[in-house]
């Protein structure tokens, strides 16, 4: 019985949110407000579970160092007080330092060195003209796209360099076309899931 009620509520909420595409009206506003409330509620529940798992359980197991982590977490709420706002800067400084350190150390390898290393491929492949031509085109695409982002080098304002960056711009527009097509595919796939729910799970007219 609870499953049937749940399916009906889910189906009606699905239709209510979809009606937003037609017009913003009371039904869609109602569904939207429920949506914001339940999503925020769930994220707080998950955050609490994380605090228990990674923080409080360790304290009860005898690792009292994590009392500092809990205190720092509580101090972040000082941001809501004008007089004590400065206390909030301590945990946020830690979070920023750790986050920046962790991200930066991997960026050098992953987004810079490995990418450059993989770009040194063989331009001319003996006996395979098609692959050779492709490799030359791809290398030209890479160089021209990179040159498009060189805004502060005076030499890049010459006519030849401008032609190179124009080629890069065209290449990137082509890439964005692929991205646009994939975005449509993503959204269609997600809505297909909702249609499948309505027809199969709710109305039972498809299998």
């Amino acid at each position, binding site marked *: 019985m609870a499953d049937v009620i749940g399916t009906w*509520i*889910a*189906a009606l909420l699905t239709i209510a*949110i979809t009606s937003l*595409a037609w017009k913003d009206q009371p039904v869609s506003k109602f569904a939207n*407000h*429920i*949506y*914001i409330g*339940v*999503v*925020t*509620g*769930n*994220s*707080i*529940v998950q955050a*609490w*579970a*994380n*605090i228990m798992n*990674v*923080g409080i359980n360790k304290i009860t197991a005898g690792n009292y160092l994590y009392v*500092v*982590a809990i205190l*720092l977490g509580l101090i*972040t*709420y000082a*941001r*809501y007080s004008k007089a004590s706002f400065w206390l909030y*800067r*301590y945990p*946020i*400084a*830690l979070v920023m*330092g*750790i986050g*920046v*350190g962790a*991200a*930066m150390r991997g960026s*050098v390898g992953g*987004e810079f060195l490995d*990418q*450059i290393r993989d*770009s040194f491929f063989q331009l001319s492949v003996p006996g395979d003209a098609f692959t050779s031509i492709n490799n030359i085109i*791809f290398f030209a695409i*890479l160089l021209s*796209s990179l040159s498009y982002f060189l805004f502060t080098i005076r030499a890049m304002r010459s006519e030849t360099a401008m032609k190179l960056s124009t080629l890069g711009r*065209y*290449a990137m527009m*082509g*890439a964005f*076309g*692929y*991205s646009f*097509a994939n975005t*449509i595919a993503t*959204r269609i796939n997600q809505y297909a899931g*909702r249609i499948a729910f309505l027809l199969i799970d709710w109305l039972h007219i498809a299998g």
Partner: protein
Amino acid sequence: MSSSRRMYQRQIPLAITFIVGMIVSFDWFVKWEPLQTLTTTLMNFQIVMVAFMMGFAGVNLVYLHTKRIQRNMSDNKLFDVLLSAILLACLFIWIIVGVGIGQQSDLYKWLFNTFNQSLSATAYAATLFYLASSTYRVLRIRSAETGLLLLVGFITICANIPLFKAWFPILGTILVWISDGLVKYSYRAITIGVGLGGILMGVRTLLAMETGYLGATEE
């Protein structure tokens, strides 16, 4: 601001960012067990602190919608009062059930499957209509660049449709050329640029040249 206040309200946090950032960065290069243990502990602290920060959304919602209820009550906008009240009610019910009874409980799972799943899925999926509308009304071949964008997009949509791929197998070869060549190398240039920018921003943050994350100052 006096120098001692400036010290503990600004300069010590900036110093903490630098020291902790350097410790975490050095861990990549130096294989030394005490350093690795310290780094792992710092990262676990990060998990706990970020989990606490997720509560900001709830606090902001309660503050905002309480104010809205007060304002709308005085303006007699009862429907808006009802909407804010429902939002807050859902928030508190989810927290009470999820934290109090437990997210493993049948009740919480039912609430999640009925409300969260349908609302999240549909809210995300319904953007299809906005995208479809903009595709129809805005995307026009006005120049060579937009023409190229639409041509590649058109070919990719066709190639992603099994129906067309079955009729025109060449679409698969063209799609491979587009994805493994055009897209990969264009986005590689963007990735290198973004990576460089990210590293520079990271260095600026650690060296206290970017201090926006500390929030507004009293100066």
